[in-house]
C-alpha cells in the first residue's frame, strides 16, 4: 500500500479538512465498502446510500479516530457495517420482515458461507470457525456477514429461537477463546 492510499494517513488529512484526501479514500475503498454493505442490505441503491452516509460520517468524525486504538480500515468498515445494519433493522426500508423469498434467503447463506470459504487458510479465524459445530458457524456467519438478527437466523436455519441464541452465545465465546 503506498502512502497516498494508506487509510490512516488519509484519515489524518481528512481530520484536517482535506477533501482531496476524502476523495482518495473513496476511490481506494468504495468498491469494497459498497459490496460489504450490499451483503447486508441486499440492494445496490441502499448499499450506495449506506456508503454515501458513511463517507459523510468519516468527514465529520475523522478527528475522533484514534490510531493508537485500532486500524483505520477497521474503523471505516465498522462505520459502513453499522449504517448498513441500522438500515436493515429499519423495517420500512427493507422487506425481510414481510417475508423474504427463499431465493433471497439462499443468497444470504451463499454469501455467508462464501466469505468463510474465502478466508485465507492460515487465518486463525478460519481455523477457529472450522472448530465450531456447523450450526454455530452458520449462525455466526449469517449474523456477521449478512447482518441477520437472532430471529432471522432462526427462520433461515429453521431452528428454535432459544436454540439459535444459545448457539451464537456459546459460539462467539468459543471463537474468542480460540483466537486469543
Amino acid at each position, binding site marked *: 500500500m503506498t502512502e497516498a492510499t494508506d487509510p490512516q494517513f488519509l484519515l489524518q488529512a481528512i481530520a484536517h479538512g482535506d477533501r482531496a484526501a476524502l476523495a482518495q479514500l473513496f476511490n481506494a475503498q468504495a468498491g469494497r465498502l459498497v459490496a460489504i454493505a450490499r451483503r447486508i442490505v441486499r440492494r445496490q441503491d441502499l448499499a450506495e446510500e449506506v456508503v454515501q452516509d458513511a463517507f459523510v460520517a468519516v468527514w465529520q468524525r475523522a478527528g475522533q479516530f484514534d490510531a*493508537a486504538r485500532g486500524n483505520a480500515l477497521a474503523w471505516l468498515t465498522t462505520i459502513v457495517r453499522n449504517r448498513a445494519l441500522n438500515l436493515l433493522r429499519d423495517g420500512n426500508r427493507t422487506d425481510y420482515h414481510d417475508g423474504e423469498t427463499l431465493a433471497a434467503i439462499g443468497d444470504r447463506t451463499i454469501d455467508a458461507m462464501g466469505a468463510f470459504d474465502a*478466508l485465507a487458510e492460515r487465518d486463525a479465524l478460519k481455523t477457529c470457525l472450522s472448530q465450531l459445530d456447523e450450526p454455530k458457524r452458520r449462525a455466526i456467519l449469517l449474523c*456477521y456477514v449478512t447482518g441477520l438478527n437472532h430471529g432471522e437466523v432462526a427462520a433461515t436455519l429453521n431452528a428454535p429461537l432459544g436454540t439459535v441464541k444459545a448457539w451464537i452465545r456459546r459460539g*462467539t465465546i468459543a471463537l474468542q477463546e480460540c483466537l486469543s
Partner: protein
Amino acid sequence: MTREEKLAAVGDYVLGLLDPAEAQAFEAACRDDDEISEWARQFAERMGALDFTVEPGSYSPDLWSKIEARVIETPQAERANIVPLVPRRRSAIVQQWLPLAAGVVVALGVGYLVGAMRQTAPAPTIIAVLLNEADASPAVIIEAFADDSVRLLPLDDFEAPEGKVLQLWTLPDVATGPVSLGTLPTTRDTVLAGPSLPTPQVGQLYEITLEPAPGSPTGRPTGPILVKGFAKLPIS
C-alpha cells in the same frame, strides 16, 4: 459481569446483534472497562477478515459527487462526542485541558502579544494559535521562524502522563504528510529546533498529540490530537 458474560456481550456487539440503545450502553461500558474495550477491538479486527473476502463491487459514477455535495455543507466536528473504540484515555486528557479558561486569553490580549513580539528578534514568520480540541478554547501559541525553529507559548501548564510525551507536528503539505517538530514533557515556553522544512506558510497546520515516550513509534501522529490550529501572518 463474569468473564463469560463479557465475552458474550463482545460477541453480540461485534456481530451487530445489539439494537442502537444496547450498542450505546456497551460502548459506554467499554469506556469504563479497558479489558472489555480491548476484547471488542480484537474480536472486531479478527472478524474484519470476513469483510476483506468481498469482491469489490461497482457503483454509480455519481456516488462521489453526491458525497462531495453533502461534505461541502457539513462542518467537521463534535470532538467531545467520542465514538466507539476511542475510549477513556482520550476523554481523561481532554478533561485536563478543560481548565484553559477564555479569561487567560483575554488577559493576554492580542495587543499584548504583538507588543511583546516586536521586542523579540527575529520576528516569527508565522503564528498559530492552537485550539483545545474539546472546547475550541485557545491553548497554545506557536511562533515559527524562517530558521526552522519553533517557539511554543503555552496558555496553561500541562504535563504528559507517565510514559507519554507531547509531540508537536506540522503539515507542510498533504503530500509530505505530518512532520514532527519535537517532543516535550510539559507545555512550557520552549524553543524547538525543528527539522529543515520549507518556510512556514499561512494556513499551515500545527498540532500537538499525546504519544508514547520517547515519541511516536511510527514517525506519524498516532495518539489523540490535543490542540491544533492553522498558521497566520503576524501583524507587522
